[in-house]
């Protein structure tokens, strides 16, 4: 290697150092701490004993019966299943609603488009907790949704539709929270779409639905996939919507982790659940990479 090349390589390292530093300090090290804690023993007064143990992972699948034998316990798998199902459902609803919204915005004249995109981001200006509480009031007993039914005398003796503290309420919360993250990437890909292609499709006898399926959706796929990841990943780990709208009875992985650290003081188990969550997220990202590669091969020039 020539001297210049050595200096060049050194320079490159130097230039990239801040990035490595940030990734190391804020991502790699915390993750390693988390993984490490998940393999330690619980200290019931908070914190951990630095002893290697796989108890936390065992606890996820098994519990000890009175004789001290390990018995399979599906309770946490149910929570995992519920979390994945809720996140997937929220993602699906966000795709459907987000695509429609993005399509509507793209079809507006340019000046109105910018205004509408700006309006989409407005919810981010308010604290998420406040917005989640707003949904408690909307969905709760005597809330905005209940009252017209009550006025018409359609409610039973308990005086509520019973929307709050259900999976539906969690789903509404998740969809509401993450919808903007779906709209923006889809909008970005639709905005690049050449609308002459839509004309070309209709010229070749395609009706609106066929054009949508054969031309618009395939070309907007990168945006839809990006949006799906942006919604699915945080929805899977979310604990605010489950805690506030699902009540204490409906745990999800996110609320489980929060509960272990904040209330139950079982750090290793909380960390283990977080690692499991992480594995799920990684798996979905791997799927994303495969999907986009396929889309890339079908490729836009």
């Amino acid at each position, binding site marked *: 290697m020539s001297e210049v090349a050595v200096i060049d390589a050194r320079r490159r390292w130097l230039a990239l150092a801040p990035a490595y530093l940030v990734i190391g300090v804020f991502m790699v090290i915390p993750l390693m701490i988390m993984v490490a804690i998940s393999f330690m023993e619980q200290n019931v007064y908070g914190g951990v004993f630095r002893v290697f143990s796989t108890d936390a992972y065992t606890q996820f699948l098994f519990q000890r019966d009175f004789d001290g034998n390990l018995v399979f316990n599906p309770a946490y798998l149910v929570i995992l299943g519920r979390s994945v199902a809720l996140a997937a459902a929220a993602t699906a609803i966000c795709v459907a609603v987000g695509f429609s919204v993005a399509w509507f915005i793209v079809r507006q004249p340019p000046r109105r488009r910018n205004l509408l995109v700006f309006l989409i981001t407005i919810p981010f200006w308010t604290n998420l907790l406040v917005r989640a509480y707003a949904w408690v009031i909307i969905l709760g007993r005597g809330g905005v949704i209940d009252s017209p039914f009550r006025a018409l005398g359609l409610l039973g003796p308990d005086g509520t539709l019973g929307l709050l503290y259900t999976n539906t309420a969690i789903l509404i919360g998740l969809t509401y929270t993450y919808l903007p993250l779906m709209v923006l990437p889809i909008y970005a890909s639709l905005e690049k779409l050449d609308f002459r292609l839509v004309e*070309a499709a209709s*010229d*070749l*006898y395609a009706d609106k639905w066929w054009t949508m399926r054969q031309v618009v959706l395939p070309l907007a796929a990168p945006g839809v996939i990006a949006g799906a990841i942006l919604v699915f990943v945080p929805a899977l780990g979310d604990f605010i919507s489950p805690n506030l709208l699902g009540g204490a009875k409906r745990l999800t992985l996110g609320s489980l982790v929060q509960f272990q650290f904040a209330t139950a003081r079982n750090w290793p188990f909380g960390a283990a659940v977080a690692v499991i969550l992480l594995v799920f997220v990684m798996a979905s990202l791997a799927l994303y990479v495969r999907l986009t590669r396929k889309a890339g091969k079908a*490729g836009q*020039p």
Partner: protein
Amino acid sequence: MSESIAGTEAIGIRNAVKRYGDFTALKGVTLSIADNEFFTLLGPSGCGKTTLLRMIAGFEAVSEGEIVLYGERIAHLPPDKRPVNTVFQHYALFPHMSVFDNVAFGLRRLRKPPGEVERTVREMLALVHLQDFADRLPGQLSGGQQQRVALARALAPHPQVLLLDEPLSALDLKLRQAMRGELQRLQRDTGITFVFVTHDQEEALAMSDRIAVLRAGEVQQVGTPEDIYLRPENRFVADFIGDTNFIEARVERVLEGAAELIIDGGIRVRARLSHRVAPGEAVTLSLRPENIVITAPGEGLAEARVLAQTFLGPNSLVTLELPGGTRLHWRRSNQSGGGQGLGPGESVGLRFAEDAIAVLRS
């Protein structure tokens, strides 16, 4: 005579008007395009030619008037219900589909059986010499190849009429010239009526059976390329197509289909008439530069003085001045052995080729 149509009418445009707010893009256009015709809409940008084409395709609604396709009124139909296909200016190929799937798009929508789709697509690709490119994506093709895919895609469903929106404008000159012959061949081979939009008069003259010249949303003249070039009816058509000399004249005598006129310095000329004029009327004449014949001094109709000469390759444009001050451009061939050049100040005689002068409508 230019309005007469041989055979059945493919497209009838009846008093079509298009308004965008206060702006009127088409001011009552009436045209009749014959079956199996290569018909060109020619005009400068903003003349409404593309709007008219898009109205036939169904992308633009008519504000007033009617469009008739082989006897059927179609102005109210959406584009996907009209048996016409378009070759777009920038091709608009589906970037995520192979060449094969692009060409098959319309056929599949018409629910042709897979065997027929396969056969027709192969046939169309062969027609445009792209047999070996079926599996490529549009992004992997050159501009000229994409152009031919667009043609194959639009021809595959065998539309009643093919609409072409400046399809050659994005190609370089050589390719453009080659594609002219190709398009004519395709039109003859398929027997489909072509409606071609262009601002390039040379393209229009080279390919069309008939041409409609448009300006500011109005039809100026409809006719064969010869009609349009040799017998322009008004100043715009004469000026837009080719080069011409405009000569102010006064009508001396009206004859059968012609008139005798006096131009500059009492020179008496004969010109064709396509409309009525009265003796004594002041009119404008059009004379193409190639229709001036130079003679030895004193032997022609008039004397002229050479002012300047511009070399243009195959020919030169010579500026002549008549005794009364009228300036004329003369296109002089630079064929080998065509004699020596003319120097400024030299005197020549000139006359005009038979039937070469047209009286323009004011």
